């Protein structure tokens, strides 16, 4: 399998937080959702992948090139959107095109204009007059207009209404039609990832908990609702995490097929990205 992004054993230590041997690989033609609670290390990982912070250890390969030795080449071929608009308030989208046109070799002014029209952004309107959603859309238009092969998005859909989010998700799906393209998207809006992600990587307290295909997760994991007294009867090897509530408890099951054959009387619900995230973040181990 050819990878568009390959991060291996990335480490970065701060006084009160550390990324601990973070590894992930995004295959070409795929969208990877990067999930985790606030402060889990998603943004720090993305920053380390872009050399915005200095890594203590580990390697980053993007499009087959090492980040340290081919940083400029890589950045010509990736589009990045952060969780905030980094364009100056007094500028207009037309100014942004002139600026980035002088920075990116492949900048396509017409494609940028097409995105502006599609997003309903006035070319001559000052950015200070834009809403947060409009600013995010501008960032996405700017990230796509130099025809990148890889998109790295850090909470890029936050602050957008569901209609615009859907519109943008369609653009991401359209982008991924080219099998040489890939997207790494960190998001709190797990329903978006349920719609578009092929792979999911979950980070918790600076460590990768899993990085697997979303279908594999959905096919294998399940949720069982039972009484707390039933929990003791479930094999430890079957339980990933459990959560108790006033009605009993919910259990995240590792292999739902094997579980169903061993405990045919128990009802199994399907998992969602959000439920998996909640079990890992707030649930307990048996």
């Amino acid at each position, binding site marked *: 399998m050819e990878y568009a992004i390959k991060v291996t054993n990335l480490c970065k230590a701060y006084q009160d937080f550390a990324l601990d041997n973070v590894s992930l690989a995004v295959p070409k033609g795929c969208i990877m959702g990067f999930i985790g609670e606030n402060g889990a290390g998603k943004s720090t990982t993305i*920053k380390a992948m*872009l*050399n*915005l*912070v*200095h890594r203590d250890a580990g390697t980053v390969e993007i499009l087959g090139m090492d980040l340290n030795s081919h*940083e*400029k*080449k890589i*950045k*010509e071929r*990736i589009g*990045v959107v*952060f969780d*905030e*608009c*980094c*364009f*100056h*308030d*007094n*500028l207009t989208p037309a*100014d942004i095109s*002139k*600026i*980035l*046109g*002088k*920075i*990116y*070799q492949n900048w396509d002014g017409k494609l940028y204009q097409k995105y502006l029209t599609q997003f309903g952004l006035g070319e001559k309107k000052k950015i200070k007059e834009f809403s947060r959603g409009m600013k995010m859309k501008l960032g996405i238009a700017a990230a796509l207009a130099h025809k990148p092969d890889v998109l790295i998005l850090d909470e890029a859909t936050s602050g957008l209404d569901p209609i615009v989010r859907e519109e943008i998700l369609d653009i991401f799906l359209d982008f991924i039609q080219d099998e040489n393209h890939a997207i790494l998207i960190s998001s709190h809006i797990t329903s978006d990832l349920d719609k578009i992600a092929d792979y999911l990587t979950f980070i918790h307290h600076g460590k990768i908990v899993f990085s697997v295909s979303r279908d594999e997760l959905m096919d294998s994991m399940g949720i069982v609702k039972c009484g707390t007294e039933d929990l003791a009867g479930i094999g430890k090897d079957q339980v990933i995490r459990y959560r108790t509530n006033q009605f009993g408890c919910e259990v995240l099951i590792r292999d739902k097929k094997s579980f169903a054959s061993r405990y045919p009387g128990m009802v199994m619900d399907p998992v969602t990205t959000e439920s998996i995230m909640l079990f890992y973040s707030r649930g307990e181990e048996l």
Partner: protein
Amino acid sequence: MNGLLYKDLLNLSSTTKYLVLVMLFFCVIFVPQGNELPVYILLIIFGAMLPMTVNTYDTTVRWDKYAASLPVTRKEIVWTRYQLMLIGMSVAGIISLIIATMMTVLLPGEGVFLSVLDPLTLTVMFLACGLLVGSVILPLTLKFGNEVTRYIIIMIALVPVVVILGLTFLLLPSGLTFPILPLSMIAGALTAVAVIGVVVSYRLSVRIYMKKEF
């Protein structure tokens, strides 16, 4: 022109209008009185402070984080700041030279410095001072940010005043005076110091910026 510099100039375009108005006001008030000094000082401060003004804009929107994700090296980002300073100082120098030349033609013998200096030497001296000020400001801004740099500049500005006053008080009782050097020598020495200052400052700024995390 590179995109980063173009972005800075676009951002400064609205500020520049106000700077021109302030400068015209100073010209109208001081030049007819034969006192061109405030105009030169103002021009040089504007020129030297341009990168600091740009830094304020960039910090507000966290542009540096975005710039680090673009296909530009950190060295290029720093070099753009120095280019901006050099452009600012060049514009300040050209305007100073025009004002000084006009004063020597229209008000011959007038002027704080023009009575003893020709316009070109005067401009070179002021430019050298401006470049030195800018060279001090830039690495400080990159290291500590604008807020802290402002206070540091005030402290640095006070040093020469204190030294000169201190020396004067020390020399006066002993009957000694400051050695008077030829003005051309002072201009040459200042220019040499300014060039060295810019080079050292640039290298220092690159080292500071390389270590930055966004």
